[in-house]
Every structure is written in structure tokens, then in C-alpha cells.
């Protein structure tokens, strides 16, 4: 990871980590405490603007990497008149990986649990219009297992807590296909995650949490009814999550999203079932993001 900052500092200058605020030397590549890239802070310093952290959270294999990689690529293709500028070449790595894999009809590899292996994207985003507000967005691609471990046993991955504490908005991905198939797992996991967020973000139990949370029903191509009415789908299939959002969050909305237009299944040499994205037809990717931005 390299910094593009032009600001010069004397040797030995200490700077806080953007995520956990631990003091690090300026030449550190990763925070010594939470292992987030220090380039984020260097970018923030060079921008002289407080960046917004928007987190994409959810269970393992729910589609966070594909969703985020696709979103970043769509932004860089000026989808919905967004203008986005990656700050630092490292910010492009995620979309590069996702797009390279999807275009060759493969899903990108699973995100490792090791925090320093995560991709981080720092983008300057605005609408292509005069006097449009510019957002500096930091979006990490977190491993679902790490999120699950932190939720189940706080302080396992401190970076996750720090990230959520600092998040201006979140996109919570829930596997709609699994929920539609009757599995309680998506509902329970999302419930735990939102409870965890509530626990670390809410100042008083009586007050609803105002952090905007877009609940994204991922893999909605498996259950097209999601697109018809995501709220209704959530009320029906993710009732526990729905009720918690309704009770504790003042800024939430449900969206359906899918990236794959057709899915095939093969096997590998170990007889594991391997899903293949036959063709790519992103749907509902920008909408939750746009909604979160509108609420910041």
C-alpha cells in the first residue's frame, strides 16, 4: 500500500490510526493495534476532510466482497451519475479482483479472516452536478467470519468494533435466498449483528439509533419477490430483524440486490459443489448506497 499524500512531516511523527486512534509512526503501513492500513489516515490528512466510514457487514458467504467490489466498479463507471475517485491504488484492488473473477465466470476467493489481508477502499464520491457534496468514503471488505467472531465474542477482532463505532452508515447484507428457503440463520445472524451495533452505538436505551442502516437482501436473483417489495419480504422472512430495526433504529431501509444473472453448479476435484456465475447482471447495488449517502 502506498500513500499519495503530499504533506511532509518530520521523521518520527506519530499519527493516529483512522479506525482505532492508536498512535503509529507515519511510515507504518498498518496500525500496530488494529492492523488497518495507515494509508487511510495519510489520505485523510492530505484531504483535510473527515472521511465517512461506510461499512458493509454480514455473515460469511453472504456476498459482501462481490457486492462491495461491484459497487466500487459501478461507481467508477459513473453509475447513476456518481463520480468517484479512488484515493490510492490500493483502493482499486478489491474491485479489480472482483471484476477479474466475475468476468471469467468465477466468484472471487473468500476473504481471509486475517485483518491485514482485507481490501480497503478509500474513495472520494460525489454526484456529477455543480456544488455537489463530496464524500470521502472508507469501505473495508471484512471477512464474515471475523464479524461473526467479534459479535459472538467481543474483542476477538477489535478492528470491527472500532469500525462500527466510527461508521457513519452501514449496509447490512442478508442472504435472501437462504431466508426464502426457510433457514433461520440469516435472521438470527442479522439480529445479533444489529444488537451488537446497538450495544456499541446507542448512548441511551430509550433513544433510537440514528446511524443509517441499509439492509440489503443479497442474492435476490434466487427469489425475485424480494425485488417486488423488499420490506414485505423482510417482514415475512426476517421478522426478528425487522422488529429490532423497527424498535431500535430510526434510519433503516430494506433493499434487494443481486449481481449474478444466472448461476450454474459444477464440482471440483474434491467433489465440492462449485457455483459459477454464468453472467453478470447487477441489480439493486447502487440504491442502498445512494440511500445511505442521502442520510449521512
Amino acid at each position, binding site marked *: 500500500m502506498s500513500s499519495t499524500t503530499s504533506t511532509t512531516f518530520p521523521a518520527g511523527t506519530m499519527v493516529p490510526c483512522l479506525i482505532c486512534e492508536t498512535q503509529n509512526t507515519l511510515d507504518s503501513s498498518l496500525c500496530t493495534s488494529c492492523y488497518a492500513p495507515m494509508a487511510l489516515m495519510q489520505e485523510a490528512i492530505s484531504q483535510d476532510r473527515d472521511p465517512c466510514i461506510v461499512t458493509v457487514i454480514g*455473515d*460469511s458467504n453472504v456476498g459482501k466482497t462481490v457486492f462491495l467490489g461491484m459497487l466500487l466498479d459501478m461507481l467508477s463507471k459513473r453509475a447513476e451519475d456518481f463520480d468517484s475517485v479512488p484515493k490510492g491504488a490500493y483502493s482499486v484492488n478489491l474491485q479489480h479482483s472482483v471484476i477479474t473473477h466475475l468476468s471469467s465466470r468465477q466468484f472471487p476467493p*473468500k476473504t*481471509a*479472516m*486475517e485483518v491485514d489481508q482485507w481490501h480497503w477502499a478509500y474513495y472520494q464520491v460525489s454526484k456529477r452536478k455543480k456544488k455537489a457534496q463530496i464524500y470521502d468514503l472508507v469501505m473495508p471488505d471484512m471477512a464474515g467470519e471475523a464479524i*461473526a467472531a467479534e459479535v459472538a465474542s467481543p474483542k476477538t477482532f477489535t478492528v470491527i468494533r472500532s469500525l462500527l463505532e466510527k461508521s457513519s452508515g452501514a449496509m447490512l447484507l442478508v442472504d435472501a435466498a437462504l431466508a426464502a428457503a426457510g433457514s433461520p440463520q440469516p435472521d438470527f445472524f442479522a439480529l445479533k449483528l444489529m444488537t451488537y451495533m446497538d450495544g456499541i452505538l446507542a448512548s441511551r436505551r430509550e433513544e433510537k439509533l440514528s446511524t443509517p442502516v441499509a439492509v440489503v437482501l443479497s442474492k435476490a436473483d434466487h427469489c425475485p419477490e424480494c425485488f417486488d417489495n423488499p420490506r414485505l419480504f423482510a417482514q415475512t422472512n426476517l421478522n426478528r430483524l425487522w422488529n429490532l430495526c423497527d424498535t431500535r433504529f430510526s434510519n433503516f431501509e430494506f433493499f434487494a440486490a443481486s449481481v449474478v444473472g444466472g448461476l450454474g453448479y459444477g464440482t*471440483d*476435484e474434491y467433489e465440492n459443489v*462449485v457455483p459459477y456465475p454464468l453472467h453478470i447482471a447487477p441489480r439493486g447495488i447502487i440504491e442502498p448506497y445512494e440511500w445511505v449517502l442521502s442520510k449521512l
Partner: protein
Amino acid sequence: MNEILINCDQAIFTSLRGTMGEGYRIVACSKGLKPEEKQAITRLSPSQDALCLSPSDEKTFDPSKVCAAYYPLPGGRLCVALSCYAGAEHTGRGGHRAYTHNLILTEEQFASCAYNPFHVIRAMISAGMNTPQLSPPQNLSVVDLRVKLATSGNLGKRDPGMCSIPVLRFLLNAMLASRHVVGNVAARWLETAEMVLLGVPGPMRAQLSMGAGLKFSVGRSHHLQLLQDATTGTKTRATGQHSDYIDGCGAAAPATPASAWLTLVERMWNQGDWAYLSHRTSKPFQDAGPESRERLARWYQCIDDAANMELTKLLAVAAEHFAPRKDPIEGEIVGELLAGIQRELLRRLNVETWPNVFKTWSPLLAQWRRSDVGFTWSTPLVEAVFRSALRNDPAAAGALVMDMTRHSTGESHEQDRREMVEGALMQLVKWAEGASDEQITPMRRVVDSLRTHRPACPLSKRLLERCAPKTPVMARR
């Protein structure tokens, strides 16, 4: 004892789809695991693509190859982890599934395994724990594991494909300073790790951590991380996290400071004598700090070098070590040192020329008189010198007896000393009674001295009689 049985908790960390979720997590464990231990295992276990094995490269992939780690857990127990690949990732999302079987050992169990996690790793492999269980029951039972404590033969001679001695020395030096060090050591991570680890004093190993064959991750920053990865990214990230980095396959290793301990270990690396190295370093030392290590190394050095030391040097070394030790392990080593020197001296006193032997007499006598330990240790040596004198220079033997007679060894050994003197006198008498007059002549000066110091001693009288100048018979008549 060559084999021990340990009884410990276990946990399996891998990526599976289950009713309670999917992906990497502890998928099965025994009931004794504490929450904070589970947390540490979750954080430190390798996940997607974290092993330095390349299953996609069929030419180089060796399915029997494993990766290993050990690290202290919160609460004082230690985790010994054996990792391997378990086929493709079940989600089909590229990459290969890492599978890790963890055993949780108490400090006592770790000590009973000679502080060597590789004994446990080998036992785990023997027990089939490198064969992934992809449908384990959620609750595992406690493991009964037979651990063989033999190091010899597991490592073999260090071959040219392994990293150089200076690299090993660099890695060990970092470990001894409790610094974090990352080394690219090609595919020989397990052997190299064991070699380095055997250079660390046993109890100190329990405070450190090690990963072998795991890709570098700052969140899993073990003290010793040996891997196969020459990418500059690893070096940058490692150094950024204040870890030393060394490319064991390429660049020359930076110089390490002079250290008796490092030199000692280096010598054993060169000899490939792993059992001996393990024996030397795996004792339950109370203090394994830098000063203690240097002290221990010097002792071991002396033990090993005794055959090459001059007689007087041997005595000088021995003279330094009669003081009692607080640490029983140190006392044991010093005992081994003194016994070794004594053994060597006894051997040499029997074969050396008398002038050389005689040079030892004065320092030996000093030890003999100095303390209880000195008396006990030097008594057989004194006797050996006396025997040598008797063989080569009886007059000198007589002088030795006189020395022994004149110098007190303190009340506690007075009786022993007397018996020794009498024994020596007896031998001297026997020798004199069988000797010719010519042989006797040089003894007369000694006998005069005996008259002064042991006038009532019957042996002295016998000797005096034998040594008295004889009047020619004819003349008397």
C-alpha cells in the same frame, strides 16, 4: 523416559457449513476450552489461503506436508496447532480450505514434552490429526496423546538446501531477545523451526510463539515465523510491525553479537546432534535470561571441551565451580561439569608424564584443602597423582605424602585425610620394602621429615627402618 501420555483439550478450526453458521470458526472442541482460549484460537488460526502450501501446483504440492504453530493462550495454557489443506473451500469460492487441529496443553504438560512443540506435532501426525475431519461432532472428547520424546533422527543432518548457519543464528538471536522475526526459509519450515527452537532454553519457549508454514499476517505475529514467501510485501509488512525479516534463501544474514550460547548452539547445529542439543537446552531452568544463558553456555562449553584443555586449565575451571548453586538445574549442570573434568583428569593423570602430572599437584592440593566439595572432588585425583608419583618418582611420592600430612583439610575431613595419608604411607612402605638400596636413597630426605611429623606412626617407623642407612655387615663384625 522416551514416551509420555498427555491428556489435553482439543479444538478444530476450519471452514464448514453448519446449522449455526458457516465459514472459518471453531467447528468442534472439547468442553474444557475456555472462552478466552477460543477467542485466541479464532484470532490466531490460519484461514483462507494462509498456508504456504500450493495445492494448485500439482508438481510441487506435497499433501503430506503440514504447517504448525504454538502459542501461549490467555490463562497460561499453550496451544499447539497442526494445519493442512482440506480440499477446496466448500463455498467453491476459489482457494483451498485450511484445516487446523489444536491441542491445548498445560505448562506442566508442555514441560513434560521437553518444551518441544514438535514432539506434540509428531504425535498429532501419528494420531492422524493431519487427516481433516470435515464432519466432526460439535463436542469432542479430551485427547489421550502418546508423545515420543526423541529428537534424534527427526531432523537429520542439516543439508545444503536449508538456510545457512548465520541465518539460523540470526533467527535464534531474535528469539532469545523475545523479538519477532520472520524468515523466508523455502519449504523446510518445520525442520528449520525445530532447529531454531531447540536453541532456546526450554522454559523460555513456553513464553514465546512460533508459526511454521503460515503466511505472514500482522494479526498472527508469532515470535518466530518461518514461511516460504519471498515477496517484498511480506518484508514491508513485517518490518512495519517491528518484526525482523530475513530472507533465508538469499541475502547474507546480518552479523549477530558474540555470545557463548549462540556459539554453543551453532556448534551443535553443525554437528547435527539434535538429541544432544535438546538435552542441553530443554532443562527446566529457573532463569533463562541472557546472563544465565551465557553462564550455562560456558559450562556446557567446558564439559564438551574438557578433552582438549590442559591439565592445569581443567583444574582452574573446576576451581571456579565449587560454590553451591541456588538453581538445582544449574547445580546439576555444574555437577556434570565437575564430574566431567574429574573424569578427564583421572584419565590423563594415568597417562601423562610425571612432570606434567606434578604440575597439577599444587592446585589440586589447594582444592583438596579448600572445601568439603573440593576435598571430595579432588580426593581421587590426589590419589591418582600419588600413584603416578609412586610409579615415576617415589621420592616425589614421599614428598606428596608429606604435603598431605602437613596440610589440614578441616575437621570434617580430618579422618578421611588421615586414612588417605596412611594408605599412601602403606603404599610407600610396600614400595620401599621391595625397592633396592639405590632406589631408596632419594627417599631419605622425606623420611627425615616423617620423623618430625609422624614420630609415633608405625608405618613411618617401618619406612624409617627401611630407609635408614645400612652399616656394612662385614665392618660391624
